[in-house]
Structure formats: structure tokens, C-alpha cells
């Protein structure tokens, strides 16, 4: 046997222990940071012309006033977009999306939801996502793409007018952007609660195993 084979085996056995590879962890936390900046500054921007009968408390917004919030929003968007694009490309190229997130079946989601609610869902093998996780993770990736596209539609309704039209016009795109934000915030709440309930999953996302 050549040395190459041995090192391959070593690599495989090391790999098997790694639940979250380094690139996933780096992109995950960068994304979390960018998302928080986008959401907090976005709430301040929303307050300048609310779509609904409420405003966000100034204690949870970023930027101080509309102009400051816009600067934050249009700075953090680069971080979010570049990080998100790398994530999408890596997820597709490495086959991680296919391996980790597919297939998702309605039956599987229903039975895993039941199991989760009765406390019977197993977290023994963190390398495999259950059907609820698959649905939530795949869903938030799609919502993430939608929020960037609707954001571009609001940012450049003349230059990207076909994209804006696709969302039903400027006003409609604002609502899409808002509801995507609401979806992501809801996801984050569930995500953080579940991560705290299963601390070893949080550890895996920090140190990899």
C-alpha cells in the first residue's frame, strides 16, 4: 500500500468526525453577523415609512436615523451577498445541498414534526438532518435568495426594472422584502432556540465536531 492510500484513509477518518467543515462554519457566522446588521438597519429604514401600523423600537435598530441606517444597510449588503454567493456555489459544487438537504418528503416532514413535538426526535447523528431541519434550511436558503432579489428590485427599480416588475412593481417588492425579513427572523428564533436545546449542534457549528 502506498503512503497516499494511508493518508487518504486518515483523511477520511478525520473527515467522518467533522460535522461542520470549516468553510460552512466561517460562512455561517459571517452570514449571521451580516444578517443581524441587515435586519437591525432594515427596521430603522422601515420606520421612516412603515408599511403597517407599527414601528420597530429604536432600542433594536441600527443607524440612529434613516441616513445612518441606509449606510449600514448598503454596506452590510455586500458582506451578505458575497458571503451568500460563496455559500450557494460551495453548497452546489461540493454536493452538500444535495446530500444534506434532499430529499424532503411531506410524509417525512409530518412524522418528524410529530416526533419533535413529542420529544422523540433523535439527535444522535448530527451529520444527518431530520426532515424538519431539511425543510427549514432549504426554505431559508430560498427566502434568502428572495430577500436579496427583492432588495435589488427596491434599490434599483429603474436599472433593474424587469426584476422589479417580476415582483409586481416597486410597492409590491417592498412587501415581499418585508415578508422575507419576517420569515428569516422567525427562522432565526426557531433556529437559535433549537440550537440551545441541542447544545452539541451549536458546538459543532463553532468547533466543527
Amino acid at each position, binding site marked *: 500500500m502506498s503512503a497516499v492510500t494511508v493518508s487518504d484513509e486518515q483523511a477520511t477518518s478525520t473527515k467522518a468526525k467533522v460535522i461542520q467543515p470549516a468553510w460552512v462554519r466561517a460562512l455561517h457566522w459571517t452570514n449571521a453577523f451580516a444578517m443581524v446588521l441587515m435586519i437591525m438597519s432594515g427596521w430603522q429604514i422601515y420606520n421612516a415609512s412603515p408599511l403597517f401600523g407599527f414601528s420597530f423600537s*429604536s432600542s433594536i435598530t441600527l443607524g440612529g436615523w*434613516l441616513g*445612518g441606517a*441606509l*449606510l*449600514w444597510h448598503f454596506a452590510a449588503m455586500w458582506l451578505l451577498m458575497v458571503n451568500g454567493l460563496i455559500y450557494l456555489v460551495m453548497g452546489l459544487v461540493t454536493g452538500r445541498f444535495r446530500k444534506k438537504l434532499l430529499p424532503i418528503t411531506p410524509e417525512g416532514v409530518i412524522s418528524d414534526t410529530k416526533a419533535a413535538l413529542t420529544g422523540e426526535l433523535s439527535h444522535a447523528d448530527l451529520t444527518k438532518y431530520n426532515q424538519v431541519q431539511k425543510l427549514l434550511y432549504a426554505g431559508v436558503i430560498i427566502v434568502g435568495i428572495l430577500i436579496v432579489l427583492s432588495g435589488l428590485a427596491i*434599490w434599483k427599480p429603474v*436599472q433593474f426594472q424587469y426584476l422589479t416588475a417580476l415582483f409586481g412593481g*416597486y410597492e409590491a417588492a417592498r412587501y415581499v422584502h418585508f415578508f422575507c425579513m419576517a420569515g428569516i427572523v422567525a427562522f432565526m428564533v426557531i433556529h437559535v432556540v433549537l440550537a440551545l436545546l441541542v447544545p452539541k449542534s451549536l458546538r459543532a457549528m463553532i468547533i466543527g465536531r
Partner: protein
Amino acid sequence: MGRMRNLLIPGVDKTLLVRDAVKSMPDLTRRRFITSGASLGALTLLTGCDVTDSFSAEEMLKQVSKFNDGVQALIFNPNAMAPTYPESAITKPFPFNGYYDVDDAPEIDGKSWKLEVRGLVENKKSWTLDELYQLPQVKQVTRHICVEGWSAIGSWTGVPLRDFLKMIGADTRAKYVWFQCADRDGYNSPLDMPSALHAQTQMSFKFADEILPRAYGFPMRIRVPTKLGFKSPKYVISMEVTNDYKGGFWEDQGYNSFSGS
């Protein structure tokens, strides 16, 4: 937690902003930016990154905003027209918007008003309203998008700015056309030349086929459908063709200068 709340700064609502803007905007803004910087410090601390005292979020944000000016100039397509709408789509009433109350808007006597022309132009003569009314005008029904997020569709009639610039022999290789207004605070705003030369950019004299009402900028406003609303100055009294970036009322307070749409 109390400290955290201090760092995250209470914001202001629109009415307060309007009131503050007149009195102490630059000061207030500066203070807000510095504290915004502090809140980024708090956030980076949460993520475990090292934060040094020399780190200035304000400076970083300014630099990114300049970078965003460049990106927007790059994706600006001079041939892309802002969508136009049927007259039935016009927003009624079309909102008045300013950092002052409509009753405090400039009251201009159209007979004595003159448009001053300065800078890199061959013919620096001032223009009376009657002279400007003689020039060929066009009508457009386009969407006005405010930096605050709301939008409204209006009907504007006036002289395409590029026709006027050509007529007065403006150096269209210059970087900006800088507008000054009759507002008590001397509202002003720079417009980049490619946007000034866009076919829909207009010196507007009419709204909904009527002489421009005081609320919308009598006797003349600039209407730039490819930009956010604050880049369409009202009550214009002078324009200057220049290569210098002279800043603007809102631009100086932190709104992105290109602010294209």
C-alpha cells in the same frame, strides 16, 4: 444591558427628524454616527473580534458609500427609461414632502424670479420664467421614489435638462450639475452629468398640466426619475456646471450622493 442600549442610540421619528434637521442636523448626525460606530464595536465584541480605538465605523461607512456611488454610476444605463404610467395611475393627492411644513415652503414671485447659470457654460445669461416657458416642453408620468421608501406617481411637464444644457453650451464632459434652491437653508444638490443628460431628466414647470404648485417647487424643480426624490430639488434658483463635488443638503448628512433608482 443599559450600556448596550446607550450604544444602540434611540432613533428619531420623521416629525422629530424634520424639526431637528433645521436646527442641528450636522451636529446631531455626527453624534449619531460616532455612536453607531460604538454599536458596531459592541457587535464585533459579541463575535469575539478585536476592536481597536482607531476603528471608526463612520469612516468605514463613508468609504463604502463612496464605493456604492461608483457601483451605481457603473450600472447606470443612460438608455434605460424609468417606467411610465397612464394618467389614471397618478397618485392623488401627490404628497408634499420636505424638512419643513408646506406653509414654510419658499414663496417665489414668478415675475422677478430668474434662473442663474454658472460654471462651465458658454452662455451664462440668466433666464426669466417667461423665457423658459417658451422652450419646447415634454410631459412624463413617472414614479417618484422617496428615500424613506414611499412612492407616488406624478405627471411632470418641462424642458429636458439635456436640451437646455446643450443650448447654453454647457461642457457636458464636466462631472456635475449643481443646483441651488431658494429654501431658507439653501438646499442644494449635485447631479452627476450622465444622470443630468438622461432623456427623462427634466426642468419641470408643470404638475398635472397646471403651473407647478408652491408645494412641488414653483417656479421650477428638477425632476430626475432615475434617482431618489431628494435628488430632484425644488425652488431652483441656480445651476452650475462643475467638476467639483460641492456636496448637498442631504448628501452632507449621510444620504448616498448617487442615490440612483
